[in-house]
């Protein structure tokens, strides 16, 4: 079973009426997502991420833990309890106890836990009478005997105690994802545009009618609405969809790690434009295999031949997504032209593309 890193922030585990806990929790998720797009919201105060990928990328468990700890401190000024174990049930316990278990240690860890961690009062009381104090003692009971003496709920807990089930019933808040989506404003797009305030206002209706008129005039692609999703580069995070098209959940496919830092370009080219970078001697500047430029770019040449002087550049920042699979390989470079215009370029499939303009 996969080793999970669990993040537990006790002060974020109970919602406050003003919704501030959900928002803070969302900020933690968004921040951690920069390290790992597969971070999973479990319930308020608790989230997990598979450790294997980030650990390989950051060079070990300790480095990932340190990065996560730092991120949560930066975002909320809070300390997070971190733990690593196999399966959600043990990962949460590990986080609360702040222990990092290596592969294969989880079963022993689970067995020594007090019976109360299964969260069933009746079982804990009866267990004491029967001389069963730990999860391991309970696990050792014969399943048929458990079925005889206990309710269906306890039979499920018995399977958790034996490691046959990885999580407790109710450990996960099944409505959390929907709440997070609505806190992010992701469910309010499209034809069934609902106002932020829960019901459509008169203003929303007028806007819908106006959008209909424009769509009628210009066609289905005429009016667009914006959607934001997880992702690294501005051109990945942004999407403009025809107004009225069904919204879809695109978050699962968020690439990583680390967003491009600093401001994003206010023009993000829907269709990147092929360009060339040239050095002082008018030689072509390319991306080397080791992620560096073959020479300092001195000018930017467009396909139609026009040429602009480059006075400064930064990067390249490689974006190798899902390096364990054969993902897209890209690198970004920022250039400042002699006209004062700043642009974002991307190297992909062996050439340069203009992807954004900081107008």
């Amino acid at each position, binding site marked *: 079973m996969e080793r999970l890193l669990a993040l537990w922030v006790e002060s974020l585990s109970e919602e406050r009426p*003003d*919704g501030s806990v959900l928002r803070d929790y969302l900020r933690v998720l968004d921040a951690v997502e920069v390290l790992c797009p597969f971070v999973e919201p479990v319930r308020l105060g608790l989230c997990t991420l598979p450790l294997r990928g980030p650990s390989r990328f950051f060079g070990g468990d300790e480095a990932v833990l340190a990065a996560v700890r730092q991120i949560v401190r930066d975002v909320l000024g809070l300390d997070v309890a971190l733990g690593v174990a196999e399966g959600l049930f043990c990962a949460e316990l590990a986080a609360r106890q702040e222990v990092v278990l290596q592969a294969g240690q989880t079963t022993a860890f689970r067995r020594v836990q007090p019976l109360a961690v299964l969260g069933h009062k009746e079982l804990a009381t009866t267990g004491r009478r029967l001389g069963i104090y730990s999860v391991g003692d309970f696990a050792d009971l014969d399943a048929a005997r458990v079925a005889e003496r206990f309710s269906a709920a306890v039979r499920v807990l018995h399977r958790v105690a034996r490691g046959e089930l990885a999580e407790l019933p109710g450990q996960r808040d099944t409505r959390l994802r929907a709440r997070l989506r609505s806190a992010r*404003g992701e469910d*309010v*797009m499209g034809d069934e*545009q609902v*106002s*932020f*305030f829960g019901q459509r*206002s*008169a*203003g*929303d209706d*007028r*806007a*819908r*009618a*106006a*959008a209909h*008129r*424009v769509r009628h*005039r*210009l066609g289905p692609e*005429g*009016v*667009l*609405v*914006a*959607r*934001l999703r997880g992702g690294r580069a*501005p051109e990945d*995070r*942004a*999407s*403009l969809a025809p*107004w009225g098209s069904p919204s879809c959940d695109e978050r699962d496919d968020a690439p990583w790690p680390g967003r491009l*830092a*600093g*401001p*994003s*370009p*206010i*023009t*993000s*080219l*829907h269709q990147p434009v092929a360009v060339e970078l040239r050095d002082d001697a008018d030689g072509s500047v390319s991306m080397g295999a080791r992620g560096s430029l073959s020479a300092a770019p001195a000018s930017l040449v467009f396909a139609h031949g026009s040429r602009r002087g480059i006075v*400064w550049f*930064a*990067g390249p920042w490689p974006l190798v997504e899902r390096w364990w699979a054969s993902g897209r390989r890209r690198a970004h470079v*920022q250039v*400042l*032209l002699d*006209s*004062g*215009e*700043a642009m974002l370029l991307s190297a992909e499939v062996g050439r340069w593309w203009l992807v*954004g*303009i*900081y*107008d």
Partner: protein
Amino acid sequence: MATLRPVTLAKSRLVPLSEPWASLTPGGGLRRGSTVVVHAQPGLGGLSVGLSLLSEASAKGHWAAVVGVDDPGVVAMSDLGVDLRRVLFVPRPRGAWAEAAADLLDGVDLLIVRPPSRASHGAARKLMDRVRERGIVLIVLTEPRAPWPLPADLSFHLISSRWIMSSRLDARYVTLRVSGRGEAQHRGEHVVMVPDVRGRAVAR
């Protein structure tokens, strides 16, 4: 969660602006029925300034539309504080920008238009009249090759800009002149940071 009342706001004479724009503008907001021009050389920051004017209004429940901005960087807009849930984009109206703008007049409180070429006197007059009649705000983004043919009620003229760099582009200082008719006269030159390192517009 705070409850907002767009209905009350709709009665107000001003569409709200966030800082730093509020303190550069007479009354701290955009007067309904007025036309605002944001004029800049391409690449100087005119688009960031223009779109940033939507932030406070969209956050307060007003709808906006953006006509003729080909490839809006919606991440940057979000960083500027624009609530994208209330923005309609009409990126490529082709020859029909004036018609598309007219279609939107009844649906939004703020209408941003970037005419693809120089607008005719007649088209500009007609649009400004209808904007006044409907009590919304028109924001026109112009550049030297496509100026707005009529005087605006308020104008932001970008004079120069300068990037601050470290190992990347961090922020940009934009020097602009604010001018206009009546109370908006002689508002003078100002320096605004847009975007700052977090993509926002802030007073220097």
